[in-house]
């Protein structure tokens, strides 16, 4: 009895302590919120105030550059890979394919080491910045300190959700009807669905021309209603649903982990983008005036957030694919491991491609916003000293597109029946080559005096035309269309005769109609310049052309001529892309920029409708043969290394461009760099530093892979010892199609 009382007292004390802790944390968070909305006035340091530290051999700039870039690459890795894992886990849960689940689980082993490496580089970066640029850092911290406190707390959130996600993988399976679990799952569901709720609330005013506005109190109310509805649904006796699913709870932890990662990324992005496009600065008074939030929501913040988010998907996928390639090459020929890693490489590459396709457009938006913020920055980037980096970028992106297509073509080797589509490979390669040649042609050429005279200037009279944005936009859209065509052919490689449309399920038919209708409505939204009546006629013709093509494609599908419908869609998009590419030369810059949206929207329309048609027409089609995973030429695996290296290199290259644009400014046009490193390095030197960073990163990632591999071997041995048999081997099969 006494013992019970002691325990009870201890429990009461523990409860009180927990409550006090929650109360304190709540107070702290409120304090931080108050700080964020509290306007401050921070004086700009003068030249005399500026203090710099020294770093041996390479100097302060290179030291910070290397550490910051490595931190960013690992940061991208720990944001990109959980996103990859989550996509694969959801895919596995939706298709009930255990192999996806195992693949996702395999990759969670990388996370803890990758997280600690990211944190180590983050710590080194902070010390380097404080030691080498103390005055500048003091100024930044004076403005951003509240966001830094939030950052630290979010880091806790990310770590804990990561551990819950990792350690809960095996235990969170099956279903449960316990009240606590239902409450927990309902709360988690509301948390993860809340951003979707905000998006839904923002959509109606967007369509009615009211702009991007969200009413937060309404969203809280709706979140509450959602919680009550989920709880009621969960507690009601009857059939089990997702609220009872432990797997869904686990997926929620994965989504939370990604939310934390993304918010962390966005907060640190705001510090970096403030240096490029500062807001809240009163130059006449020589002070920053405003709140932390004012400084955070600077001009280039959102474009950088979006660009990095999409890039992280592509990066995560490509790194996973490279890991799979390494394991494929290490495994014995015709072994089940080879089949597994071949499949993993394919999935990684597939996710990377999904990220790669919209990436140029997000980059284009960022570039446009940089130009919009300050023409000096824009010209330095695209016409000035940094423009040659974009030629290197073009070569690497071209290599990515060529490599991704080449991998798909080689992948057809393992698909019985794909021989039927071989004849298209030379044509697609030809289109990609022409596009690549245009893509890499600079506007101003490196030419000797003799050559320049023959050309009549620094621009080639014919090829110079390929150097401007109209041509670049046109070819990148054509490359995307070609890559999509490669994927469609790959997808249908082993599919036999199509099932007649009349025999397809009602759900398939309705889905096709709905997607086509959504596509047409979206085109209206993207094409119709409601505010500019001068452009109305042209845009209406374009919309009618696209809408009629979609209707024709659907009609052909209804008549069992779906492939012809798809061809029609491709042709429509190619015509739109080429037409606006040529027309772009005859209009002013501001109109030309608008054309890029028309070009990309037509490509996205094809991606949307043609994919749906493909899924519908090949649904239930007999297979010519099963995919022979593992039977892909070894050179395909080296392509996966090339893709991962290109992505990493691109990140280094473009990271330097984004940061280096400020030239001799710590904060552009606000705080000058008075150190001996204020000069902009030569392109050769910069590329050398970037290449070294890429090599160091790849070596460290290889080490992490090796650690994870060692861990998995140890785990398999323990499992084998426990079960008194051989370790289980995954069976090849499935795919992203």
């Amino acid at each position, binding site marked *: 009895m006494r013992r019970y009382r002691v325990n009870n007292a201890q429990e009461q004390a523990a409860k009180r302590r927990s409550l006090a802790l929650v109360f304190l944390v709540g107070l702290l968070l409120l304090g931080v919120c108050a700080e964020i909305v509290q306007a401050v006035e921070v004086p700009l340091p003068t030249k005399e105030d500026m203090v710099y530290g020294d770093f041996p051999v390479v100097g302060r700039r290179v030291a910070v550059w290397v550490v910051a870039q490595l931190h960013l690459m690992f940061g991208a890795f720990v944001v990109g890979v959980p996103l990859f894992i989550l996509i694969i886990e959801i895919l596995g849960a939706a298709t009930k394919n255990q192999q996806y689940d195992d693949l996702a689980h395999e990759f969670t082993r990388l996370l803890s080491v990758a997280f600690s490496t990211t944190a180590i580089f983050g710590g080194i970066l902070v010390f380097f910045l404080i030691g080498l640029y103390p005055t500048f850092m003091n100024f930044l911290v004076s403005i951003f300190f509240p966001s830094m406190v939030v950052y630290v707390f979010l880091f806790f959130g990310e770590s804990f959700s990561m551990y819950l996600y990792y350690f809960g993988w095996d235990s969170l399976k099956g279903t449960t009807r316990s009240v606590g679990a239902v409450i927990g799952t309902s709360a988690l569901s509301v948390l993860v669905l809340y951003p979707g709720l905000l998006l839904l609330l923002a959509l109606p005013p967007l369509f009615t021309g009211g702009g991007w506005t969200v009413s937060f109190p309404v969203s809280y109310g709706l979140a509450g209603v959602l919680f009550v509805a989920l709880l009621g649904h969960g507690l009601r006796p009857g059939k089990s649903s997702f609220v009872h699913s432990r797997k869904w709870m686990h997926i929620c932890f994965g989504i939370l982990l990604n939310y934390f990662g993304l918010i962390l990324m966005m907060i640190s992005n705001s510090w970096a983008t403030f240096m490029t496009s500062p807001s*809240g600065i009163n130059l006449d008074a020589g002070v920053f005036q405003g709140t932390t939030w004012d400084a955070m929501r600077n001009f280039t913040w959102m474009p950088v957030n979006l660009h990095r988010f999409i890039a992280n998907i592509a990066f995560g996928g490509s790194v996973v694919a490279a890991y799979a390639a390494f394991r494929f090459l290490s495994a014995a020929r015709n072994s089940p491991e080879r089949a597994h890693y071949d499949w993993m490489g394919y999935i990684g590459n597939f996710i990377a491609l999904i990220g790669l396709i919209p990436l140029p457009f997000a980059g284009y938006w960022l570039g446009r916003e940089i130009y919009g913020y300050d023409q000096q920055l824009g010209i330095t980037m695209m016409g000035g*000293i940094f423009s040659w980096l974009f030629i290197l970028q073009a070569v690497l992106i071209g290599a990515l597109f060529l490599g991704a297509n080449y991998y798909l073509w080689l992948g057809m080797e393992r698909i019985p029946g794909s021989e039927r589509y071989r004849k298209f490979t030379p044509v697609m390669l030809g289109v990609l080559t022409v596009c690549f040649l245009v893509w890499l042609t600079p506007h101003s050429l490196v030419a000797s005096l003799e050559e320049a005279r023959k050309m009549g200037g*620094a621009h080639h009279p014919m090829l110079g035309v390929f150097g401007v944005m109209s041509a670049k936009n046109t070819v990148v859209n054509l490359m995307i269309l070609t890559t999509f065509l490669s994927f469609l052919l790959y997808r249908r490689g082993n599919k036999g005769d199509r099932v007649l449309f009349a025999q397809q399920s009602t759900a398939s038919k309705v889905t096709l109609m709905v997607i086509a209708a959504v596509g047409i409505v979206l085109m209206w939204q993207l094409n119709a310049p409601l505010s500019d009546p001068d452009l109305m006629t042209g845009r209406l013709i374009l919309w009618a052309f696209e809408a009629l093509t979609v209707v024709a494609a659907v009609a052909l599908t209804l008549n069992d001529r779906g492939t012809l419908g798809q061809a029609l869609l491709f042709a429509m998009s190619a015509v739109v892309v080429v037409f606006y590419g040529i027309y772009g030369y005859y209009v002013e810059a501001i109109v030309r920029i608008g054309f890029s949206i028309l070009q990309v929207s037509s490509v996205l329309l094809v991606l949307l409708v043609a994919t749906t048609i493909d899924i519908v027409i090949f649904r239930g089609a007999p297979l010519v043969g099963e995919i022979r995973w593992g039977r892909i030429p070894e050179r395909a695996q080296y392509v996966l290394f090339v893709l991962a290296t290109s992505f990493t290199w691109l990140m280094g290259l473009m990271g330097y461009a984004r940061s280096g644009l400020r030239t001799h400014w710590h904060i552009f046009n606000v705080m000058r760099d008075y150190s001996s490193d204020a000069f902009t390095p030569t392109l050769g030197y910069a590329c050398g530093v970037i290449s070294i960073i890429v090599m160091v990163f790849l070596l460290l990632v290889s080490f992490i892979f090796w650690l994870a591999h060692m861990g998995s071997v140890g785990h398999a041995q323990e499992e084998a010892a426990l079960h008194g048999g051989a370790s289980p081997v995954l069976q090849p099969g499935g795919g992203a199609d």
Partner: protein
Amino acid sequence: MRRGLPIHLKCLLILIAAIFVFSVVVPFVSAPIPGQLYGWYVITTLCVIFLYVSSSEASWEEFITPVRNLLLARTALMKPLRIVVFIVVPLLCGWYFSTWAAGGATPPGGLRVIHPTPPSSVNVQGKRFVLQDISVSPIREDEAHLAEHIEKGRVVYYENCFFCHGDALQGKGHFAKGFNPPPADFQDTGTIAQLSESYLFWRIAKGGPGLPGESTPWDSAMPIWEDFLTEDEIWQVIAYLYEITGHEPRVMDHGEGDGGH
């Protein structure tokens, strides 16, 4: 089964066709391609040919088998052929690279920046202009007299700019041949069509000596026109340039410090 051309012949034909286009067709239609870009094009073509032959196992085997046979000297004929190849190929490479490394009397091509970065503000004739804040030329605000301004700009052009930039504004004036780099071609879609009027104002007012410190040397013979022209005359000649070429000056968006634009 229909058999096409042997794969090696196909590759050779593709290479010859590409080189023919780069070396003959483009120069015939327009102008010769500078060496560096020509090199990029040929290397890309070679890479693509490699991708083509290796994109399927069948074509790769067809391509690689004779090479493998040659390297392993599997037949009696292959042995002497291998010796010849092992001697001739390194010699050819050596000859090519020694010729390339030796160089010549022609100076190498330079990596030129075409659009120098403008400063945020300039002082012209004692007046400060914040370039970012000038979205359109001040004379365009006086729409009633715009035609008059353009006419005055034409006079300014022919009295001052014509000698280098030429009658057709293509950078082919009487003095053009004396300059390296040649004067700007305003008709080109990559010059003034890409720029705002405030940019041109800075370039004309400050000329070659006013170019920024980075990406030097600039080698610009452009005089400091603020020493010879009034502010209005500079704006007028800018309006004339856009009027006569048919290009629209670029208008910049302006940031209000609002993330998510």
